[in-house]
């Protein structure tokens, strides 16, 4: 089969690889009908995440048709149409029973590695380094889904791929980011990063009733999409984020802040961003936390910082004194996708939201390597790429 494989920094190739096969009774094999390039795939593309090996199959946002099921899988049958969450979950462990699916204790088959890196293991993830299990991803014609009697979400034929595909990652990720904010009707929610997760977070914050939603970015077309969803926009190339947020909140700052950027923050007009780049180049820091610093600084005391943006390692010069003295709450984590999918699927079916609004480019799987670059460089107005195997 064809699959997009990682071969090093900025080196993704469409390779011919062996077809996957059933390995465990709970497995299923899915024939892909649609898959997407996620913003967090770019951290792998840019070489910032450790634990990748040449030939690893990329992709953790995908859906398709079940073509084979293991003998122990009673949930799925051949022909089912499913969206597959990017987190692989067992459904039985202590964390899964608490709906903390992204920290499932059983599915990371490189648990020892994760224990060493993070102190305790987190869930296995598709196509996202050997730290999270080294599972082949879904930017391929077929994928093996472990524990397929738990994770995959059956979707009705009345909805298009484009409407439901993002249930596997960015929609619940943006939703969880907003839920973590405990939004009150009087709240201002400020969101950094108008990429796909940021766009979903805007819509989620609006649906959850935030009085005011503010998007911070510097890409005009991304800001225009955020504005379409109900956000007030701040272009950090053109104005001071701190001053504008204070203007919009009567000098008090936003009650809730969402970091939808993560480890590769870059900002013009900030000395700390320059410091991070220099320190990262010298391998003295792995992630660039400009957004975290800015959120801590601008957030209203007793506010909440929600962090769906991916961080991979070590960060420096975090103003922890401000964080502590302002009494801020940090809520973060990979998304507990299955905790939200039933509710979000219902909202899509009822027409409350159509996540396909975020798709700007659709291409063949073979053209994936080129579109990684287009997406990374934000060329041609690219916000979200869907690939068709």
């Amino acid at each position, binding site marked *: 089969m064809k699959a997009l494989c990682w071969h090093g920094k900025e080196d993704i190739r469409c390779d011919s690889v062996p077809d996957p096969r059933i390995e465990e009774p709970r497995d299923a094999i899915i024939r892909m009908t649609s898959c997407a390039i996620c913003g967090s795939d770019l951290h792998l593309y840019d070489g910032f995440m450790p634990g990748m090996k040449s030939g690893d199959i990329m992709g953790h946002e995908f859906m398709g048709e079940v073509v084979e099921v293991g003998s122990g899988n009673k949930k799925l049958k051949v022909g089912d149409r499913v969206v597959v969450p990017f987190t692989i979950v067992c459904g039985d462990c202590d964390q899964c029973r608490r709906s903390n699916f992204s920290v499932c204790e059983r599915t990371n088959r490189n648990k020892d590695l994760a224990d060493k890196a993070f102190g305790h293991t987190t869930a296995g993830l598709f196509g996202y380094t050997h730290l999270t299990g080294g599972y082949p991803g879904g930017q391929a014609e077929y994928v093996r889904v472990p524990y397929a009697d738990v994770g995959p979400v059956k979707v009705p034929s009345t909805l298009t791929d484009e409407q439901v595909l993002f249930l596997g990652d960015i929609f619940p990720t943006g939703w969880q980011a907003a839920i973590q904010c*405990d*939004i009150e009707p009087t709240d201002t929610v400020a969101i950094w990063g108008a990429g796909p997760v940021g766009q979903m977070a805007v819509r989620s914050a609006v*649906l959850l009733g935030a009085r005011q939603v503010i998007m911070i970015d510097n890409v005009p077309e991304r800001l*225009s999409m955020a504005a*379409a*969803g109900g956000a007030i926009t701040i272009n950090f190339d053109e104005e001071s984020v701190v001053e504008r947020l204070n203007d919009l909140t009567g000098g008090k700052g936003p009650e809730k802040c969402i970091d939808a950027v993560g480890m590769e923050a870059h900002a013009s007009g900030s*000395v700390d961003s*320059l410091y991070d780049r220099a320190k990262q180049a010298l391998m003295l820091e792995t992630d660039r936390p400009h957004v975290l610093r800015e959120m801590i600084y601008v957030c209203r005391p007793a506010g909440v910082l929600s962090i769906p943006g991916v961080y991979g390692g070590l960060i420096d010069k975090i103003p922890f004194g401000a964080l502590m003295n302002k009494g801020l709450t940090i809520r973060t984590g990979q998304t507990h996708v299955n905790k939200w999918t039933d509710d979000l699927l219902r909202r899509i079916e009822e027409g409350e939201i*159509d996540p*396909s609004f975020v798709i700007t480019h659709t291409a063949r799987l073979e053209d994936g390597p080129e579109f990684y670059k287009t997406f990374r460089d934000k060329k041609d107005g690219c916000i979200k790429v869907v690939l068709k195997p």
Partner: protein
Amino acid sequence: MTRMKTMLGYAGAKRLARGLGWFSIALGALELLAPRRVGDALGMQHESGAIQAYGAREIASGIGILAARDPTPWIWARVIGDALDLATLAPNADPRNPQRPYVLMAIGAVAGVALLDYLCADGLARKEDDHRSRRDYADRSGFPQSPNAMRGAAREPEMVSTARH
């Protein structure tokens, strides 16, 4: 320069500015930390102080370019700095200077970078053109009604309680 004006758009100029910023810091660090080596190479052995001052200027320009919201003034500052560099190098291209070939190479290099600086500053001036050519997604709300009409649509009691678990 009319043809050159078409060579670099705003986005390209922004990328080039970042490259020039780092180049400026690297060159400045060399001049600041090893002025004698630079001076020896150019036959300017007695001008270590001036070379270090130029290095400090380069580093300041580089930091300004990389840290400023709008790097344009700092790029123009580099153009002026290039002129100063050329004015300093030119007298040392004297045939009596045994290092003359290196001075000529340096003049060529500074002239090349000066051209890049100019193109960069010119490209940065085209921000409005860049904005006009970008896609507009103002019709992509994802909602069936206006965002204001959808505000709070998901604010159901069970959702609020889920958030607090």
